[in-house]
């Protein structure tokens, strides 16, 4: 399913404006519909750009308020998403702790097989790695609708010497201010 979704999302990279906003709220009458032009909604023209935004800005979306589409060729309607952390890796997959981004406050644990993730992401699967898991509907150019599940690992920059100096400074500040470690 992930491969199907990635293939469908690999269409035009979205120079055209999104022709329609799809939000999970549309299918959940218990939740208020979010205006497409609200500050929470992000105008993102294709799924890869949306995911890249997460990677580049450590950006955590509010899934009920956000939808993404790959442009006129294929559209993804987000119904559910989680932030996951890898806690244990096996030969055939991994166990992850999930934080529900659609319904705040829910935490789960799940076992995921490597075949469910992109080959590009396999090298990122180590304890502590962070990913986002989205489930929704994928509508093809012909109008057919399929359920889709996509797991995308977060790509974070590596620690730099400057980062480490910053950590040391913040540890010193914490100790000085609170007295811990004294």
């Amino acid at each position, binding site marked *: 399913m992930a491969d199907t979704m990635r293939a469908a999302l690999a269409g035009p990279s979205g120079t055209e404006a999104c022709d329609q906003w799809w939000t999970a709220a549309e299918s959940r009458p218990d939740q208020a519909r979010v205006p497409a032009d609200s500050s929470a909604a992000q105008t993102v023209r294709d799924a890869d750009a949306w995911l890249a935004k997460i990677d580049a800005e450590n950006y955590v979306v509010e899934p009920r308020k956000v939808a993404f589409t790959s442009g006129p060729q294929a559209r993804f309607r987000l119904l559910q998403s989680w932030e996951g952390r890898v806690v244990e890796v096996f030969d055939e997959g991994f166990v992850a702790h999930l934080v529900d981004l659609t319904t705040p406050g829910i935490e789960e644990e*799940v*076992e995921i097989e490597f075949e469910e993730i992109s080959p590009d992401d396999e090298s990122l699967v180590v304890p*502590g790695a962070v990913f986002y898991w989205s489930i929704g509907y994928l509508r093809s150019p012909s109008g057919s609708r399929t359920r889709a599940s996509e797991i995308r690992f977060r790509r974070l920059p590596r*620690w730099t010497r400057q*980062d480490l100096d910053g950590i040391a400074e913040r540890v010193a500040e914490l100790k000085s201010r609170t007295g811990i470690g004294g």
Partner: protein
Amino acid sequence: MTGPPAAHEIEVTVLGPGLGESVLVHLGGGEWLIADCCVGRGGTAAPLVYLASLGVAPQAVRWLVATHWHDDHVRGFGDLVEACPDARVAHAAALEHDEFLGLVVSAEDLMLAGPSGVDEMRKAIEALHASGRGRPIPVGADKRLDQVAGSADRPPFEVWSLSPSDAAVYAALAEFATWAASPGGAKSAVGRPRRNHSAVALLVRVGAVCLLLGADLETVAAADQGWNAVLASTGRPQARSHFLKVPHHGSITAHHEGIWSDLLVGSPHAVVTPMRQGRVDLPREADVQRIAAATSNAWLTRSRSTSASPKRHKAVERTLRERPQPPRLLNVEPGRVTLRCPADGTTDWVVDAPDPAVRLMA
């Protein structure tokens, strides 16, 4: 069993697992010690909910102890520190070192939505400081944390930490170092700890009754760490305990024959909190058999029954059902086992273990 315990009555209540676990001890005279914390579905610290159900105010909490920093023991601990204005707060000595504090501050850089054990310890440190109570008290082996003489209003009590040993603290620091940020290393969340080097086991003596709270302390090969070090110590109280909070969810890795032969009276009362993380599901059947053979008074706070999944969009539920294993909900209401007896130890314990708690049978 309704209302708070009498001034000269001991109570031990074990909660868990929700997100985390917790042990509450009535120290007599209306004062309480809470070791670790857990939250249920609503996200509120379960020990506070339980005390409120007895009509006990948070001001009655005299001690809060974080036995270690792992997610399955400290969720909500920061809220406990905030809510209990008169409580002294203690944690394992290893958490005072730069190796751990580096993990605490570097976790901020990851901007994750979900909380973790290091976040919880940071919250506790900040809450304690903000309330003007200073810093947590670092504890290690053979340290008497508190002692109060008896009076007409209360029995005498004392609280001891039995671990971690100095060697265990150094081992914990070595583990922290493996997760520490290093130049060129990948940024990631703190991984799941594999060992419990620095867990704080407690001995609480109230009147004539002793309680051994085993935390997650394990038995390791080294003579100077884990239960080997506790058993070999001459600096701890040598009294035998009448109650055991079974260490590390009943796992064989925390078993030591000496706990049962040297630290406990015959057929003590014991409570196990189950734990499931990934493919590890504790206690295993062999663990249950071993513990039930050691005492006929052992209880499990939650049976193995699974809990319902959260309600989601039908398409999402269908997708999850098609998986080999759907996600397992962690936000469950903690189970509870409560035991009470007079502090003079003259009569048997009264046990309240409502569903889903169960008695362990051999």
